[in-house]
């Protein structure tokens, strides 16, 4: 069903095809370039269907890469650069949604499920073993009552039924 990853690529122009590393765009300083590259993967190409500006060859992606590289070269930190992009393009541009109260459900639900599910399982298991195995287990220790012993003997002899 992933079948047509492509139709959109073609619609949003064959320009969205291919990756970013156009040699003429690169920063001279390899440390800065690596930082810029790490940022690219977190920024969405807002006109493309669903690609980071690291993956996209759309004109806008190239513009965005230029902005990010300029900001990096000017010594801004990642947080400042992201804030700048969000101010210009909205939260939509970040592929990683902000950690905020508004997004609490998004970030907490996965771990809440594990935590609550695990807790529920432990409680349930404890309750069930306590409820059902105690009589069974304690019963094992006790000798048979006279009536039970008699019934057993009869069963073993094959008299029953």
């Amino acid at each position, binding site marked *: *069903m*992933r*079948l*047509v*990853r*492509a*139709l*959109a*690529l*073609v*619609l949003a122009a*064959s320009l969205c*095809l*291919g*990756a970013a*590393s*156009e*040699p003429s765009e690169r920063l001279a300083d390899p440390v800065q370039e690596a930082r810029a590259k790490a940022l690219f*993967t*977190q920024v*969405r190409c807002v006109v*493309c*269907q*669903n*690609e*980071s500006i690291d*993956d996209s060859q759309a004109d806008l992606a190239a513009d965005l890469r230029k902005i990010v590289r300029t900001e990096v070269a000017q010594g801004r930190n990642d947080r400042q650069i992201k804030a700048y992009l969000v101010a210009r393009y*909205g*939260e*939509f*541009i*970040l*592929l*990683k*949604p902000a950690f905020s109260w*508004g*997004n609490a*459900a*998004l*970030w907490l*639900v*996965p*771990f809440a*499920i*594990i935590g609550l*599910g*695990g807790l529920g*399982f*432990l409680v349930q*298991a*404890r309750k*069930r*073993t306590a409820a*059902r*195995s105690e009589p069974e287990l304690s019963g094992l220790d006790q000798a048979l009552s006279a009536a039970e012993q008699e019934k057993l003997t009869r069963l073993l002899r094959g008299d029953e039924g």
Partner: protein
Amino acid sequence: MIVEIGAYCLILALLLSVAQLGLSTGGRMRGSLALIGAGEGAAGAAFLAVLIAFGALMYAFVTSDFSVANVAANSHTAKPLLYKVAGVWGSHEGSMLLWCLALTGFGAAVALTGRGLPVALKAVVVASQGALGVLFLAYTVFASNPFARLLEVPVEGKSLNPLLQDPALAFHPPFLYGGYVGFSIVFSFAIAALVEGRVDAAWARWVRPWSLAAWSLLTVGITLGAFWAYYELGWGGWWFWDPVENASFMPWLIGTALLHSAVVMEKRGALPGWTVFLALAAFTFSMLGAFLVRSGALTSVHAFAVDPKRGILLLSILGIAAGTGFSLFAWRGPRLAAGGLFAPISREGALVINNLVLSAATATVLLGTLYPLIKEALTGQTLSVGTPYFNLTFAPLMALALLVLPLGPLMAWKRGDALGALQRLWWAAVLAVGAGLGVLALLKPSHGFAAIGMALGVWLIAGALTEVAERVHLGKASGQEVRRRLTGLPRGAWGTTLGHAGLGVFALGASFETAYKIEAAQALSLNQSLNVGAYELTLTDVGQVDGPNYIAERGHLTVSRAGKLACTATPERRFYPAGRQTTSEVYICPEGLSDVYLVLGERRTGTGGNPAWLVRAYWNPWARLIFLGPLFMALGGLISLSDRRLRLGAPRRATAIEAAA
């Protein structure tokens, strides 16, 4: 004429599905074997009718009958035969027909082969499958008819998107749909269990082969899709956490959980309600996928034949089918008898953890996929949920699952010994920690997570080997005894081992590739070179090539390592005149488990006015493991499926034979 036969057979199939539903339901209610048998016959006939319709559409594609709207929109006379055939399922209408083919096919398979099944249970399964057939065939006939004709017949077709003209993608949909729709049988079994009010070990034994088959097909389908993305899209990525990919991943995750809970159900009779719930959920996620991909509700790189009107219809089908299933579950589910007892530390307990993590992982993927929609509906704010989110949520959850995994098979049912299992795994733990630390110390990976991923990969593979060693009493028994035990191992055990080791192989490849991937790009004139990792690539020639339905520029590059020629690469940049599209045909030099990946870009003017071509190259170390791992997993599924126990799979008969003997 043949196209009309196809259209006729499609409507016939719809009516036969209605008959299948009616006859089987009636037969079950009146207890009439004749009606039940007729319902089974209708299931077989419905499959035959869809098969004829499918053949008719294929005929229209192969003969390029452009009076059929679907063919005109998706085919072209100059297209190679393979892609004419693959064009049948390359469009919305055709792919729905493939869906119906799989649906009726699985229905017919149960109706005609499930001889050992209890009559009442089987009748309800066939009826439920018929009901699903009615929904999807009605949708295909009335809203997405692949046989619609055009009044004005075009001389030439618009052709299939060139990116889709690719062998991996030609076979990708049949596997994927086999997987998606295979879960429909499991869904029907769950419905039948709820209607009959009985879930037991025998039920689980009938459900397991179907879920194994569906799961294996889905695994292969997803892997083919990822492999296609890897070499066709031209930037070496293989998974993008795109909504459409997630849509195929969610049924897979739930299917994996189902496989494991069905084991508990079969062996120990525990977790009946949960297993039924997962059986309903797996196909629900398949239908959700069909809806997400086709409705355009989400922006995706692969928006597929998007049509909001049809989206609403598909959503209605999803609502009807899943709504019925889960209502039935809410009503009858609580009455399902709780099964065998077990301590939290036991093999059952380990499988419960597996189920818990996989469910949480599925919920994460679902939430990440739908969150932008929910947020926009509630607050009007748009936002994106992309790869970084899944790396921070899905990855740690899965890491937890992989950490616990090797312990499971080494623990006893009912009450296990975690310490004992750990003691038997000490060498695996040493190897894994050693691999992780070694990676950190020697290779300085760009991301610390890679070391964890590699350690987990080694842990899984070593753990799978430990399990085999334990089963054959390696080191405890004599060599002859070990050999005897090794040949006597049931295939199901081999399947488990291969599946778990395959997951380890995948983890190893995925973390290694992600951490050590090297990328380089440069505009090269003839005889200029570019370095990527240890390799030197030299552009020696660029020529013109005429393909069957495209023209291309083909670059010739020599790839050498330390002065020795490793391979000659010929990446292409193709132009398809029919759709006026340009694609790049990547060239991959396999170097052991790793790939040197080359892309030829556009022509430009280089230094000194000479023509130059933008060449991009990637060094993707251990990339093969990413695709080999899942194939091992699918193979494990198939080997398990061939286990004698599942093939015979009719416990009632077995006891009858024993009693007779």
